[in-house]
């Protein structure tokens, strides 16, 4: 029973992680940029959701499309200003974009701190549980996990079934190849960043239902997303989905067996262990 309980919790948690990771994967894949500010978009959206819910009692699920739209628009503005100018630096762009998003992360976290304070918040919404033979499943976890998984699936279908999505994938595989097929790679980079951070915001609105969140959680969420795409394989959307579910399971088990701190540190530990064990694989993945 306990095992079943942990597995269900883990899979549902993993569902939200899939969205967190795929949104970073999209940006990394098309732009070659690790967006170190990814977690701060998640946190800003999560804290906003909690604040808005506290004020008006609006269903957080309705805020998912709203936060997506707002942050998507922010992405459309930010990408040409902050990241596109770095493309001209070629090989050095990788580290320069890392520094720019590192700076952006602090700006956004500071904005989150000023706007919403430094406390951990969560949203008391869908507090009921469904019980069945001693297994209890929280309704909010089901809502967040299922919606997160669904949005990730939509992204997957959008990338693989639409012309625009296929152009995005093409741009992520070869810039020159995509250019010679008449794909506007610059527009693809813009789209990837805007959709990526938009989905990060959607993930934030969902995550705040199940995880207490504060402005300082931003870095941890970024690392979490990066670890998942590192484990699942860059550009490998199925592999990343599996890795997200596995990480959800591992965290749910570690949280039960060892306690909260171990749960927090698990992504970092996995990051270093896996990178040290298989550096070649990651070296290729990152180009």
């Amino acid at each position, binding site marked *: 029973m306990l095992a079943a309980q942990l597995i269900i919790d883990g899979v549902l948690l993993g569902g939200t992680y899939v969205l967190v990771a795929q949104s970073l994967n999209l940006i990394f894949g098309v732009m070659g940029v690790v967006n170190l500010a990814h977690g701060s978009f998640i946190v800003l959206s999560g804290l906003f959701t909690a604040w808005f819910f506290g004020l008006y009692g609006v269903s957080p699920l309705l805020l998912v499309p709203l936060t997506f739209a707002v942050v998507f628009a922010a992405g459309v503005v930010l990408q040409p200003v902050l990241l596109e100018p770095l493309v001209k630096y070629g090989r050095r762009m990788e580290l*320069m974009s890392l520094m720019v998003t590192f700076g952006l992360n602090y700006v956004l976290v500071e904005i989150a701190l000023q706007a919403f304070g430094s406390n951990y918040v969560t949203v008391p919404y869908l507090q009921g549980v469904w019980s069945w033979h001693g297994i209890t499943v929280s309704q909010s976890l089901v809502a967040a996990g299922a919606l997160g998984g669904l949005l990730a699936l939509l992204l997957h279908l959008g990338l693989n079934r639409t012309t625009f999505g296929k152009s995005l994938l093409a741009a992520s595989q070869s810039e020159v190849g995509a250019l010679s097929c008449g794909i506007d790679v610059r527009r693809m980079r813009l789209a990837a960043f805007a959709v990526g951070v938009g989905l990060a915001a959607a993930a934030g609105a969902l995550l705040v239902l199940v995880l207490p969140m504060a402005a300082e959680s931003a870095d941890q969420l970024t690392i979490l997303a990066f670890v998942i795409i590192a484990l699942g394989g860059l550009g490998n959307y199925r592999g990343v989905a599996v890795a997200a579910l596995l990480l959800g399971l591992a965290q749910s088990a570690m949280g039960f067996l060892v306690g909260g701190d171990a749960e927090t540190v698990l992504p970092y530990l996995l990051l270093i262990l896996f*990178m040290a064990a298989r550096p070649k694989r990651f*070296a290729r993945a990152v180009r």
Partner: protein
Amino acid sequence: MSEIAAKGAPHPRFRNPRLLPAAVLAAAVLAAIPVFGSAYAVQFGTDILTFTALAYGWNLISGFTGYLSFGQVAFYGLGAYTVGLLVTDTAVPWPLAVCGGGVVGVIAAALLGPVMLRLRGILFALGAFGLARILGVAFSDFALAGGGNGMTLPAELTPTAVYVFMACVALAGFLANLWFARSGFGLDAMAVREDEDAAGALGINTTKVKVVAYILSALFPALVGGLVAWNRSYLDPPSMFDPTIDLQSVVFVLFGGIGTLWGPLLGSVVLMVVDEEFLVHFPDLALLLFGLVVIVTVLLFPGGLVSLANKRGWLLRRPVLAQSALPVGEPPAAEAAESLGPVLEVRNLTVRFGGLTAVNEVSFSVGRGEMLAIIGANGAGKTTLFNTITGFVVPTSGDVLFLGRSVAALPAWRRAQLGMARSFQIPRVMAALTVWENVLVAARHGRQRHRAVAHAAWVVRTVGFAEMWREPVSRLSPGHQRLLEFARVLALNPELVLLDEVMAGMTREEQEEVRAVVRRLREYGVAAVAFVEHVIAAISDLSDRMVVLDFGRKIADDTPARVLADPAVVRAYLGAPQE
């Protein structure tokens, strides 16, 4: 004048006459603060020195060596906690405890470095970040050091002593950066930053360079952390492993000028003063300010304040070990051949990538005095073969013998030091360094400093770069960059030269120039040359022998005339016998 220089005249230290008075003035200001200044002045001075020291530490690994670290706070925390534990549990005096913190930081970096530095680029940056977070959590759960509640220290507030120590650490940081900016070792580090693979091919032990830089860059945060602990009465994991400490190092170095000698100092002093003024009005917005400074700096002036000063001719970087005039140089001494056997022997070499067999049971040898051409269609395995011989690809089976000894287990840099030099398909020169430094970095290995300088000078003159020896490589034309690769190959003074498609995409005239250089290689002591080439016409009269590869297999090995008449070769190359 240049004769003396070639023999290794002492390096002129203070060529800039303004430097000595400036140093005296700086020392006077530093000394005046604790003597005449208020308690506030001493504290503010300590803060500036703290971040100057941290910035100089960060600049070693991330500026000069090119490994961006967002986790140097790990060593800061280790240093602080070492001091905390030493002064509470034992009777060690504070200064000794601070040194103990430095030792712990160095040991930790020596243990972690070889693992962490297997990661490149983004992965190292994130790995270092993760490491700091892990340590922070570990100390929260560490009962010995008070865990998450923190530990109380026997407060001994002696701000002047801390100020003096901090000044010493900051000065040491400056000197370490001076060493990186002016020494051969620092040149190796910069070569790793510019192009790690090419640095390996030039005989630089890249692992050693990276680990030494990492250890040195860990020493400064560890010492600073210990001194900060001395100045406080309480340690807790959130403030001792605070990621914003790394943010500040990054901001200050970037703003001042990353990878420069003066950048960290300028950035720290200017931004600390701005920050102090800014904070009076907006007490909570320091992080916002720093974040914006990082973004604006990277986007608008990625070279920082130093690059702005450079435009006016100030604070220009001095090329490593470069005298005011190019030394005359001396040609390499003719060495008697060590053995009469083949220079290179490849035995049954096989390389598989997953299911693809790129090189299949290939054997051949290159004799002394021989020029061997390896030809084949696209995808025949030529470049993989070269990469395996030079140590960039690990073979699945088979052996590579160089001068009679097996080198299959040696890393690329060892093979280069033994006398195996290579070029790359696309010239991989170190763009931010000068022509002189690109040559010197290859000439340094196995030579004393004055010999390396003389040899490099000879190479620069021989290849025809005497007029532009101090030019940054980024200003060279593509043809000159290719020529510079030849210069680096000569600077290694190799027995064997491997040239990878050097004539691809060149005009007829450029091909002629390269052919002339290749013909002269033997005059310069090169015992054998092997080249991979696509343009058969350009090499058939250059080579003594030709090896033909087809889908990873050797299908011919004979004189050019016979090989080119071989129907199997014609079929492999042109696809149809009618051609």
